[in-house]
């Protein structure tokens, strides 16, 4: 997964982008809006983070109060020489799965950062020794049914499930090493929404689906378990994202007891309703018809400003259908190329993921049938042995037993091999899921661009209106009081709009930068993860094929007498 792929994680890069981010946040004018208050509060926390990536690690590796750390590291040490010497006779066991090349997979290690195993250990795999020794593990457990206490129209109340979310970390932001909270799925949705607002342009891991239909149709226990697993995966991915893991939103989600202190997302209907209330005032000039600079940093779509939504929609239509080129366009060729490549990648990923699924199923089937064949022969052997009258029967029964045993063993190997193949090839599936995050980040970019374009169009029309008024007013000797007043108003509007435009441009640039960094990170981590996947897959196949070959070779040896007899 994209998460902790620290094989040669460029800390410096991260540091740079974080700094940028912090500086942008500080630049923002803070006014009454609760939202930006929150953001600036957050930035003050981030600023205190001055840990330079190249300074000595926060926590030494030797620290193993956590029992989870001590034994695995032993195992890895122990196992590593095997893998590095390319001895494939010992196929990867489950232990190896966790600690072998691809272990950036969060599915296995639940957000454990890999560097903890790297630093100080003989690097079989070329991982940078400079990676810090952070540890951030989240687990989700213990689903409990609870009652909705207020606002229940239904007697007996609404029920919902809460999950126990346990975090173990040594990250200083948390000021603690282990803590738990109870959260419900709604809270996760809130977290996800707030993150996508705060981290525009980033590849934010997508949250689990709401699965409204499934929650009604599936067995409760099954559904809750499915959701628990999905939540754990999601939170672990968040914890593995180099930027988001340090977010305040995530921290409060994981740490603050009681009600989740994040603003909830109002539903679309309410927003539209609010917007509809405001709209007439906007149109008649009673309330501001201009976008305030601080609002500009969020896309129009999720907000209450219907007028703004309409304006931007008009702009996007003009972009698509209008004869003239919009004032600012996506010019970054590199970006456009990358985008196209990613689209291609997504398609191939989807295809490969599907074929991988078929492959896994085919391997499962062959193992199953082999097992059934073995069992059938075992029954036959037993039968022949019981009913044996001639010696030839006994000999045959003995041969059959060997074959049956081999078939059953081979069947077991197929099954074991497959269990691991699934995990390796799952990387394809995970990256496919990540493409959603990429789309989202790109649409952050395009909506920011649209905002810029809209504001520029507005500015240009405001300017031309002002010009016209000035021309008209200059014709009247002595001045035109009403027109002059209008010009003053316009100039005021222009100034505000200019400010908004500057903000929008800055936001756009910021998002572009985030995109760029994330793309680099994606390329890097994807390369590592895919390599790991291929290696793991191949090594696993080799190991088990050898075992299966061995089993059958023995039987071939034992039955070789027959070929000589009949020739």
């Amino acid at each position, binding site marked *: 997964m994209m998460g902790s792929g620290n094989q040669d994680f460029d800390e410096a890069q991260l540091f740079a982008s974080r700094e940028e981010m912090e500086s942008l946040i500080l630049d923002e004018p803070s006014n009454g809006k609760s939202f930006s208050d929150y953001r600036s509060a957050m930035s003050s926390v981030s600023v205190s983070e001055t840990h330079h990536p190249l300074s000595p690690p926060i926590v030494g590796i030797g620290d193993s109060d956590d029992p989870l750390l001590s034994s695995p590291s032993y195992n890895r040490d122990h196992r590593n020489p095997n893998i590095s010497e390319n001895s494939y006779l010992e196929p990867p066991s489950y232990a190896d799965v966790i600690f072998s090349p691809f272990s950036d997979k969060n599915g296995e290690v639940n957000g454990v950062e890999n560097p903890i195993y790297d630093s100080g250990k003989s690097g079989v795999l070329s991982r940078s020794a400079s990676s810090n020794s952070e540890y951030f593990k989240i687990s989700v457990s213990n689903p409990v049914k609870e009652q909705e206490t207020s606002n229940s129209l239904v007697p007996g109340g609404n029920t919902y499930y809460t999950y126990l979310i346990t975090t173990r970390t040594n990250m200083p932001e948390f000021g603690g090493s282990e803590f738990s909270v109870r959260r419900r799925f709604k809270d996760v949705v809130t977290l996800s929404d707030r993150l996508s607002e705060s981290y525009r342009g980033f590849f934010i891991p997508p949250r689990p689906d709401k699965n409204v239909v499934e929650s009604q149709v599936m067995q409760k226990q099954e559904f809750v378990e499915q959701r628990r697993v999905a939540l754990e995966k999601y939170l672990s991915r968040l914890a593995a994202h180099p930027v988001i893991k340090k977010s305040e939103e995530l921290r409060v989600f994981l740490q603050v007891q009681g009600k989740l202190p994040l603003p909830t997302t109002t539903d679309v209907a309410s927003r539209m309703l609010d917007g509809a209330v405001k709209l007439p005032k906007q149109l008649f000039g009673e309330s501001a018809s201009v976008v305030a600079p601080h609002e500009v940093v969020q896309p129009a779509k999720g907000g209450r400003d219907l007028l703004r939504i309409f304006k931007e929609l008009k702009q996007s239509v003009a972009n698509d259908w209008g004869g003239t080129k919009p004032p600012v366009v996506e010019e970054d060729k590199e970006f456009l190329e990358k985008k196209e490549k990613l689209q291609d990648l997504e398609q191939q990923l989807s295809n*490969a993921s599907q074929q991988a699924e078929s*492959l896994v199923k085919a391997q499962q089937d*062959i193992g199953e049938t082999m097992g059934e064949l073995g069992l059938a*022969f075992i029954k036959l052997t037993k039968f022949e042995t019981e009913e044996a009258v001639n010696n030839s029967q006994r000999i045959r029964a003995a041969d059959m037993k060997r*074959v049956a045993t081999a078939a059953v063993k081979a069947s077991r190997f197929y099954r074991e091999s497959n269990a691991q193949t699934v995990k390796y090839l799952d990387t394809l599936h995970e990256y496919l899921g990540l493409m959603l995050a990429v789309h989202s980040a790109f649409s952050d970019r395009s909506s920011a661009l649209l905002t810029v374009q809209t504001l520029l169009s507005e500015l240009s029309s405001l300017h031309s209106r002002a010009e016209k008024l000035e021309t008209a007013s200059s014709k009247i000797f002595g001045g035109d009081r009403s027109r002059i007043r209008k010009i003053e108003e316009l100039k005021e509007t222009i100034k505000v709009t200019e400010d908004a435009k500057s903000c929008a441009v800055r936001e756009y640039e910021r998002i572009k930068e985030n995109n760029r960094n994330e793309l680099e990170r994606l390329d890097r981590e994807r390369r590592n993860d895919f*390599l790991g996947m291929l290696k793991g897959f191949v090594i696993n196949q080799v190991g088990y*094929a050898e075992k299966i070959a061995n089993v059958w070779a023995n039987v071939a040896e034992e039955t070789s007498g027959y070929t000589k007899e009949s020739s």
Partner: protein
Amino acid sequence: MATITTQRSLSGSSQSPRSPSAQPFLGITVTDPVKLGNGVQAYISYRVITKTNFPEYQGPEKIVIRRYSDFVWLRDRLFEKYKGIFIPPLPEKSAVEKFRFSSEFIEMRRQALDIFLNRIASHPELRQSEDLRTFLQVDEETMERARSQETGIFKKKPADLMQIFKDVQSKVSDVVLGKEKPLEESSPEYEKLKHYTFELEDHLAEAQKHAFRLVKRHRELGQSLADFGKAIKLLGACEGNSLGKAFSELGSKSETLSIKLQKEAHHLLMKFEEPLKDYVRAVQSIKATMAERANAFKHQCELAETIKLKEINLDKLMLTRSDKVGEAEIEYRELKAEGEEATRRFETIVRLMSEEIVRFQEQKTLDIGIAFHELAKGQAQMANEIADAWRSLIPKLEACSART
């Protein structure tokens, strides 16, 4: 569609054709399947090559053209003439039109027909059969005449014959299981044998079913590997540089392995699944012989009953000094002869069967031993090829990582 394959011929003695004069030798090859005729009338003809030093035969080598129904004729004649002997089984007549001419089906059938003839040739009694000589030597027109001249049930077309055989099968079960009139011989050994035969068939049929499924699974896995390989190659094309190359090579290996899997699927079918199926057919042939034995026993018992009645009648007639005595005496003597003949026939069957059972078990241990060996060999080879193919990728993948 001519596939020239020379099968290993199992002759009764292990002598090679190079020293014909020494030991009696009869080796048969079924080869060269060719589709003849059009539309519904279409059929497959096979070339049957006989090499022998038997004096009864016309010469050291003879080649004839035969079709499936000719083989059926031979099997039926042998079944009629050699009661008590387990007649080697024939492959089934396939009902499914589409499958009838698939090259795999034809190959499976050719192999089975070859084995059929060679089993006959290696059986000390059956190899002497005149019908066998006819089958192996006469020209096609004569063969066709012989086929159609058959009286009774053999006049029917092969399809009908199969159906009758199937009917006999079910009737056999009834007879042998004693569902018909309780004229049943029952010695504990024979009971045991009957029970063994029936249960054996069930077990074997199950094993064969799984073997067939295993063949299918190999094919499916082969297909998956091909599709997967292709998809991985396309994915690699997106990536580019060393990672892309790694993907592309992995995809190619996957496609290569797909071919190996298809090969093993075919090998499994011909060398493992078919022998198992043959085993099932052989057991069914035993059941047919058991039916014959039951019939012979019934016949003998009925005759014994009739003879006794005739005896009583004759005594009565002799006491009353009837003039029918002479006639009755002749009848009685004829019946007695018949009865002795029936007894003889029955006892022959019993004797033959006990020899045949031993032969059968030995033959089957050998046949299945070979099949097991083929299974193990094929699977080991396939697994090794898989291991080798994937293993060859590892250094490249390591190199990729090192470069990261």
